[in-house]
């Protein structure tokens, strides 16, 4: 019997996934557990493993298609079976989500209440409390569209993706030809200068080319790896998200970074003891970063201003510490969240962090694990970085950069009799904060408390 293979729903916030590629061609035999196609959300990549056997009878979408979750992507069955009824556009077919064009309207109605819940809901740029779908909001943020005062065409006036697309093209007047080029490059021409050089300030194809829009440039500059000696790679969905988030972060916030260092003797000593004898007591590997995470989770509640989101005109201060941890993955930076880190022991934090990092690196992490952070820790210490200016993950108001170990010298302590200098292992911390939300003194106090706590890590463990 023919079995429809649907696009899985990866997490609550995911409405569509993009097909990265098919591993099977139509007509190929499919065995249990075979990968039929791979797909990605804007944050992670997955493979669809077959749960049935047969032959790939047909596929309704192709590589690069943005498919609504729970839509039928392809059908596996016996050769000769009719796949017509499974077509996304078939009348009375099993696919209640509809084709990709209507996907958003179809899935949007249901998640109305969810839009206002959860700590990671971002404020619309100038949009106030306008009802908008997450997908439309993402596009609006990406394209820099101000949708304040707009009534959408979705249920109950909710703004959905096509409304933002319409706003984007109206705000960015373009010649007919340039508009077509923009549509072909899925709106990634937003970098074109405004106003354009065309009639009435319209963007022309030349303007788009100047802005490096892929759709327009593809015609003008074929063969990126030719004479120029460079390879041109289209940004992945994940990379585009990172790009726009980082850009927005630096563009919208008043960020500055404080640098401090602490005597890492205590944490190094503890780590050595865990290494030597932890296993016997059932304690797994605990890294210096885990200890910093632990220290942050304990110190941060006393500095609520740092454990906040700045949303529009208000600051949301969180009671619990949900720690984002920056992870370097082959797909780029991902920031999974250790939820309620303040309620976890050091061992539990170490375990959670190691599991999250592994999932993020494999690409198969649920997008739900990538949201909800209230504060982020980023670690470049392994590369010998001595200080840096980490970029805040909006709408958070601060991020802690963890730097490498260096040997420092200081005047020997121990009373008037002690003389000369002594060396000690020092670790640097770089705290970037949003000066719109927090002033320098409270940020400095937090950093000092954090250094003190790390220097007395044994006492901290009592918390």
């Amino acid at each position: 019997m023919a079995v429809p293979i649907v696009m899985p729903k990866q997490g609550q916030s995911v409405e569509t996934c993009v097909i990265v590629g098919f591993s099977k061609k139509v007509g190929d035999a499919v065995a249990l557990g075979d990968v039929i196609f791979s797909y990605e959300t804007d944050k992670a990549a997955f493979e669809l493993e077959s749960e049935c056997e047969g032959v790939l009878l047909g596929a309704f979408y192709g590589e690069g298609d943005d498919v609504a979750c729970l839509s039928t992507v392809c059908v596996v069955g016996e050769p000769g079976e009719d796949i017509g009824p499974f077509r996304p556009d078939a009348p009375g077919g099993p696919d209640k989500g509809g084709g990709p064009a209507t996907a958003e309207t179809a899935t949007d109605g249901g998640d109305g209440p969810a839009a206002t819940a959860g700590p990671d809901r971002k404020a619309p740029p100038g949009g106030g409390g306008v009802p908008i779908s997450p997908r439309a909001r993402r596009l609006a943020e990406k394209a820099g569209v101000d949708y304040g005062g707009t009534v959408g065409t979705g249920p109950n006036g909710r703004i959905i993706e096509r409304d933002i697309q319409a706003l984007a093209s109206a705000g960015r007047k373009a010649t007919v030809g340039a508009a077509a080029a923009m549509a072909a490059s899925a709106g990634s021409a937003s970098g074109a200068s405004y106003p354009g050089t065309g009639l009435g300030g319209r963007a022309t194809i030349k303007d788009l080319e100047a802005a490096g829009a892929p759709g327009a440039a593809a015609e003008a500059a074929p063969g990126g790896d030719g004479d120029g000696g460079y390879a041109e790679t289209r940004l992945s969905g994940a990379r585009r998200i990172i790009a726009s988030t980082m850009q927005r972060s630096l563009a919208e916030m008043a960020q500055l970074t404080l640098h401090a260092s602490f005597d890492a003797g205590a944490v190094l000593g503890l780590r050595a003891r865990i290494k030597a004898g932890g296993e016997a007591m059932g304690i797994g590997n605990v890294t210096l970063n885990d200890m910093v995470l632990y220290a942050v989770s304990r110190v941060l509640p006393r500095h609520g201003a740092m454990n906040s989101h700045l949303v529009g005109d208000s600051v949301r201060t969180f009671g619990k510490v949900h720690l984002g941890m920056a992870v370097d993955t082959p797909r780029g930076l991902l920031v999974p969240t250790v939820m309620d880190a303040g309620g976890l022991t050091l061992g539990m934090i170490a375990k959670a962090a190691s599991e999250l990092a592994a999932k993020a690196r494999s690409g198969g992490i649920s997008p739900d694990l990538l949201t909800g952070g209230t504060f982020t820790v980023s670690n470049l210490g392994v590369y010998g970085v001595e200080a840096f200016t980490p970029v805040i993950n909006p709408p958070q108001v601060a991020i802690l950069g963890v730097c490498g170990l260096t040997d420092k010298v200081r005047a020997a302590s121990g009373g008037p009799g002690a003389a000369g200098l002594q060396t000690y292992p020092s670790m640097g911390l770089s705290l970037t904060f949003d000066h719109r939300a927090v002033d320098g003194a409270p940020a400095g106090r937090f950093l000092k408390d954090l250094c003190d706590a790390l220097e007395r890590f044994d006492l901290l463990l009592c918390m």
Partner: protein
Amino acid sequence: MAYDLLVIGGGPGGYHAAEKAALAGLKTMLATDGPVGGVCLNEGCIPTKALLYSAKVYEAAKGSAKYGVRVGGAELDHGAVIERKRKVVSALTGGVTRRLRKAGVTVAQGGAVIRGKAGGAFRAEVGGEAVEASSLIIATGSSPIMPRIEGLDRALGTGFAMTSSGMLESAAVPRRLVVVGGGVIGLEMASYYNSAGSEVFVVEALDHIAGFTDREISSMLMAEYERKGVRFLLKGTVTALGDGMVRYGLDGGAYELNADTVLMSVGRRPNVAGLGLESIGVETKGGRIPTDGRMRTNVSGAYAVGDVNGESMLAHTAYVEAEVAVDNILGVRRSVRYGAIPSVIYTNPEVAGCGETEESAAGKGMAVEVRKKPLAYNGRYMAESEGDPGLCKILLEKGTGRIVGVHMMGPYASEVIFGASAFMEMEMTGADVAGMVFPHPTVSEMIKETLER
């Protein structure tokens, strides 16, 4: 007196700039040493159109039998044609004068000479009066080129040789007219005098007439006028003018031709002399004032629009350049787009074009697909024509399908071509335009017809 803006020259570029600037609130002086309206209104675009329309009416009357209308004794009264032309010109120049006054422009009759720049303001002498202005628009236009031809000065003195301005005032129709230069002006005058009964010779130095016009269409136009009796001497060079005599070289030989009048129309040269440009250091290059897309010269605050910058020498180009110059003076950054400026030759049939020709596309290495169809496909044309030639040709960029050139020959071509300019400004494809609705039956439908296979 101190002004925000001094505009030198009263033609389309000058008067349009002055009116726009004054309406935007700039205290503006327009200095002109001739009547307002410049060449366009007084001795160019408008008066020639008046003449050519009279010729068209006369031709229609003569050929009316083909349409089932019997008209006896149709005659062209050249004196009356010239008189009507005067009325048209006078009405239009009067209109421009009123508009300038209404906008609050100070119009100063008399040549302007730039004297220098002091304290951020340009100093100039206008009709003997000292004037200061923060910005300057040079719109002094152009004059007919007088090539080195033996006896030309004398012939101009006796009236044997004339420019188009002189011809437009002349009450006589020459029995034989030799037109030196087969460009737009030469062809329009040849067309009128051909209708008016002159025996017309056109001596053209190139191997084709009508300058940069699509070569296929210029060949068709030449064939049509040869049919009407005009003789074309291509690759011919006039070497000397004597009493009622024109000597020209052709294919290595030297020939003489008797003539009553010689029209000098080999081209036009920007007017840059005697303006005092050197006093403020405005650069000239090849006899013109080079400008950037925003109409700026090399001197900050000094702009040059219209024929004087040598960019395109069309009145409608001067209009847009004037608007752009004024916008930039007002702080609105804007540039002229020269790619979609239409051009028209008001012969009968009319020739109109916009964008690349097959020749210019090849010169730029552009790969184009040419779509063309004779006007015989068109209902309106068939209803109103009797064997007149007509063609529509559209160039599509290969790969993108975008319209990069439209060229037409036939009735109403001059009125249809603005659409081509719009298509190109909007960077539309052939498919985009083929999807539009054109009124039926009109000659404009040829555009859609030509795009459909």
